[in-house]
């Protein structure tokens, strides 16, 4: 079934690419700009997650890039799933997301090329200050989740196929728990991270949040961190790496590939990575640069586990 669907998507994609080939010359004319002879394209469309957008990091990152090339970056904040879907339709040029499994699927299907590791922070398990599930200080995330489910303390899930939602489902899964079997205490919030944090705060519930959004919002809400992520010495599964992928110009030949690659180049450069490192909210660093490394890191370019087995997922 899955294979068939992919085959269909690929067929539609390639026939559309052929169909659009004739229009590309027409559309390309508007891209020439005397101010920026080095690069084609005027507007880069970036689809990304609410966690990078709502923290304000992207405004900080994009301004120098826009100045240097005389272009504009249109940033559309969606969940990771929606951001990738928009790119699959050829409606964005570059994607910045945080769910490696979904990114790998995106590349496997041929929609994405030239993926780079960008930055990371971590997830934290937050909940009401009085900690009804009794999980505070727990260093093992699976134990903490098991305790929440045994106490049937309310837990709000993103429920929106975002990177955070994907991570949350992975964590329940590794803890050996089945989300479908949960009772009413497990709430499908269906919103962005900020909305879910508000919801959890109002309902005295637990939730999984990326540290950046939580720090950015903690003065507005009544939630504490009960299980830290690896940035503060917590368990490794709570790692939250962000990647950036260009949309494959062979599949969608109208995308601003030049500009997308210039953007990826800029954002993984020393300048871009310094902006990420230096960006703070309420006095705390939100993201940690990951693109610069003297050691080779080939895994960032290919789906995870590519070398050992490249058959499935």
């Amino acid at each position, binding site marked *: 079934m899955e294979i068939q669907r992919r085959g269909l998507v690929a067929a539609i994609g390639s026939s559309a690419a052929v169909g659009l080939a004739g229009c590309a010359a027409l559309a390309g004319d508007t891209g020439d700009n005397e101010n920026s002879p080095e690069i084609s394209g005027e507007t880069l469309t970036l689809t990304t997650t609410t966690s990078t957008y709502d923290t304000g990091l992207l405004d900080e990152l994009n*301004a120098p890039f826009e100045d240097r090339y005389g272009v504009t970056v249109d940033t559309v904040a969606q969940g990771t799933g929606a951001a990738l879907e928009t790119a699959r339709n050829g409606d964005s040029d570059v994607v910045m997301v945080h769910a490696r499994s979904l990114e790998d699927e995106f590349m496997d299907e041929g929609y994405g090329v030239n993926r780079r590791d960008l930055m990371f922070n971590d997830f934290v398990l937050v909940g009401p200050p009085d900690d009804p599930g009794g999980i505070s200080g727990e260093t093992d995330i699976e134990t903490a989740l098991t305790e929440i489910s045994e106490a049937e303390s309310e837990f709000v899930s993103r429920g929106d196929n975002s990177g955070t939602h994907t991570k949350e489902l992975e964590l329940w899964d590794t803890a050996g728990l089945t989300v479908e079997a949960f009772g009413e205490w497990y709430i499908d919030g269906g919103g962005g991270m900020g909305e879910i944090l508000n919801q959890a705060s109002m309902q005295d519930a637990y939730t999984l949040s990326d540290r950046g959004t939580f720090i950015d919002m903690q003065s507005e809400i009544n939630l504490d961190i009960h299980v830290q992520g690896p940035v503060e010495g917590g368990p490794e599964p709570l790692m939250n790496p962000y990647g950036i992928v260009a949309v494959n110009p062979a599949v969608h030949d109208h995308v601003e590939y030049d500009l997308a690659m210039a953007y990826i180049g800029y954002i993984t450069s020393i300048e871009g990575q310094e902006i990420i490192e230096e960006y703070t909210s309420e006095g705390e660093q939100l993201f940690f640069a990951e693109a610069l490394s003297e050691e080779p890191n080939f895994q960032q370019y290919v789906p995870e586990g590519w070398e050992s087995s490249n058959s499935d997922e």
Partner: protein
Amino acid sequence: MPLEPDTLTPLLIDFPFEWNYIRSIIYVSLYVSLTAVVLSTLFSLPVALLVGFKDFRGKTLLTSIINTGMGFPSVVVGLVVLFAVSNQGPLGSFDLVFTTEAMIMSQFILAAPVITGVSLAAVSSVEQNVRDAAYAMGGTKTDVALVTIKEARYGIATAVLAGFGRAISEVGSVLIVGGNIASSDGTSVTRTITTAIQLEARQGRFETAMILGAILVVLVLIVNAIVVRLGNGGGGGRYE
């Protein structure tokens, strides 16, 4: 300020936005919604007159369909427009996704049934003898239509205002087809007041969201006042 500054803050709250930001989202909101409403009116009025004047089989059905359109969920309209303008869609080559043009398209679809439906009700309620009189005095079809519009002008003004209210207050479709984009210097590209409210609420900044909500209400009030004023000025006394 030694006297309990806390109690004063709700009233003297710091205006939390750059003026440029506010001005640009107001501009985008008005540009999109007013354009959509003008286009909808140009489309809907002739349709309402045509349907209102003619008797034909299926008139009741058509009226029901128009009235059903008033209840289109904006999110669904947004999705349909997104499919149409997406690079994979039939209008893909025009590069409309995440633009104000796409937002105007979806608001047109939302406003047109409201304007058509309410105008149709207004036109239908103009009594037959008024139209007959216009005919009897040697009026052409155009004259009769103008007389009917004049008689039904309050109903039509209400229709246009209802359409405008539908357009400027909806958030579902403009969020999907517009993408809620603001540039890094804080100028709105496709961000409207409603999507800005959604963004603030998402981040837990309910106070700023409320301020934006108040701006929206004031804006709608101003537009309503202008339309009512135009209606009174242009048409003379009501019972002339």
